[in-house]
């Protein structure tokens, strides 16, 4: 893997050039109030790469919260036409745990029947990663993410003194930086490694990630589900802000003339009360505790068993956005460890 470097100033000029060229939308992290969000950039001035976490992960660009899938004329099966807005984009400053999450999303949307709405957006995107430069009190990514980030990143940046070291991960990344003042790297691998690990996580999952599927399986009846479920608002914040949650609902909307229709998909989530309601009104997960357990099982048991990776990347957004202060996987597993059933859980 080629390793280059660029000064911060040159990197900003490079981005401004990219924005002017309009070959792709340039998206980056910007400040909103006292927090951060991904947003399209009009110039590099607003770019805020020194950030702790963004409110929503970059998944909103690949699976928009409300997405038009197709247009049709009611009652006319020949009239269905797919619509897919997949203009090229480059997203700058994605932390490694969000890249790991995109890797998981890619798996979900490419397996079996390829989801063209998601995958075409991914095909037309350039992902510029960044090692975090700022501490975030709820982050525990180091204890759960392995090497998935490099499976999707096109470029990985490491902040050094006044410079960015840029690891050129893909051909797409190599093409993207053509024309910028990217020069030969002069930092040692040890220096780069130290910079990558400079920001520490305070939190970590208290047991080894590999053991969690079994651990959860044996704790299906643990009181944690009911105790935490009782406090849950079923507000769905935790699943909405989650970078590895991709559940959606599909609806048809018809114009007032009843002659034009569109099919849309919108974000949905297993923590919402009506998520598992089926025909005739039966709800497969009627109780809050059932929904709470399902969400943790999904991250810690179902996905690992299917794909062999932990389904949570430790970004800490769920814990941060939970009004009731119960959503974080670290908190859940700590509670289970502190309240072992029959003396042991595993």
């Amino acid at each position: 893997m080629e390793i280059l470097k660029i000064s911060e100033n040159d990197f900003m000029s490079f981005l401004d050039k990219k924005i002017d060229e309009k070959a792709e939308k340039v998206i980056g992290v910007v400040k909103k109030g006292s927090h951060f969000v991904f947003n399209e950039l009009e110039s590099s001035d607003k770019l805020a790469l020194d950030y702790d976490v963004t409110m929503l992960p970059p998944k909103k660009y690949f699976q928009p919260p409300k997405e038009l899938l197709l247009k049709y004329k009611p009652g006319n099966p020949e009239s269905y036409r797919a619509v897919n807005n997949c203009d090229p984009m480059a997203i700058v400053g994605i932390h490694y745990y969000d890249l790991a999450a995109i890797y998981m999303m890619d798996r979900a949307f490419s397996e079996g029947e390829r989801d063209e709405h998601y995958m075409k957006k991914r095909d037309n995107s350039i992902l510029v990663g960044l090692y975090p430069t700022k501490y975030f009190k709820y982050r525990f990514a180091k204890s759960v993410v392995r090497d998935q980030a490099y499976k999707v990143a096109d470029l990985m940046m490491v902040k050094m003194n006044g410079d960015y070291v840029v690891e050129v991960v893909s051909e797409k990344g190599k093409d993207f930086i053509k024309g910028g003042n990217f020069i030969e790297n002069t930092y040692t691998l040890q220096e780069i490694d130290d910079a990558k690990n400079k920001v520490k996580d305070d939190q970590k999952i208290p047991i080894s990630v590999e053991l969690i599927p079994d651990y959860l399986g044996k704790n299906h009846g643990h009181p944690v589900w009911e105790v935490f479920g009782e406090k849950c608002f079923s507000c769905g914040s935790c699943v909405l802000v989650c970078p590895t949650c991709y559940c959606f609902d599909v609806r048809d909307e018809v114009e007032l003339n009843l002659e034009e229709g569109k099919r849309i998909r919108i974000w949905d989530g297993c923590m919402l009360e009506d998520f598992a309601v089926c025909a005739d009104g039966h709800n497969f997960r009627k109780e809050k505790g059932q929904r709470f357990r399902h969400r943790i099982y999904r991250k810690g048991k179902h996905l690992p068993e299917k794909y062999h990776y932990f389904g949570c990347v430790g970004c800490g957004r769920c814990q941060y956005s939970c009004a009731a202060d119960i959503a974080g996987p670290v908190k859940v597993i700590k509670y289970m460890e502190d309240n072992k059933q029959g003396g042991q859980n595993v």
Partner: protein
Amino acid sequence: MGSKPKVAFFDFACCEGCQLQIANLEEDVIGLTNLVDVVEFREILTGKAPEYDIAFIEGSITRKEDEERIKDIRERSKLLVAFGQCAVSGGINRLKNNRESLEDVKKEVYGDSYNMPHLDTFPTKGVDEVVKVDFHIPGCPIDKNEFLSVVKAIALGKAPSIPNYPVCIECKLRENECLFDLDQVCLGPLARAGCGAVCPSNGVPCDACRGTVDNPNQNAMHEILEKYNYTIDEIQRKINLFGVKPEVKK
């Protein structure tokens, strides 16, 4: 329903602002009249009809004659839709139910005329406390696009879809900072979404003007109250504003 459904609008105790939202549909009014046949709508047309496919009811029920009138409308309507928070839960009008003496309320509002026979009111009721309601359209005022979606759904023979998730969802979608973190009491975690979190997005805490979700977790509100040093009274006062159940447990 075959030919265009016959639709009527009626108002009870309210400010008529929700009807105004419909009158404000502008060009969509034409689309609406292509879809339904509006046979009664005091605010925008004259005319009466003996029966209706859909009766839209605005306002709360506060008098004996209101009760008789709504029962009569119900009997002559195939479907009845309560629209606007007054019709759905009693709305702001329900505030008076929290006062000890209705007599004092009348004196305070109507002064010397308080004893006039048409002002003889009882504690405010939502429409479904008097007659069967087929669908509710919440909000103070209603969202006109949500109203249209309900009309379209009924015209297509489908059940209308009203969000049953809290306003927090819509705040997260707009990437708003949580107002609790800015030291404000917000009913977002209990309140029914569908407004696009318009108030919190503009720095104003949610007052649950669309009521609560079907099963709000009022007990969990305790956790927040403690965490942010709020009193139960502060939350309860806000919940009372739009006549919304439930009570926060002490």
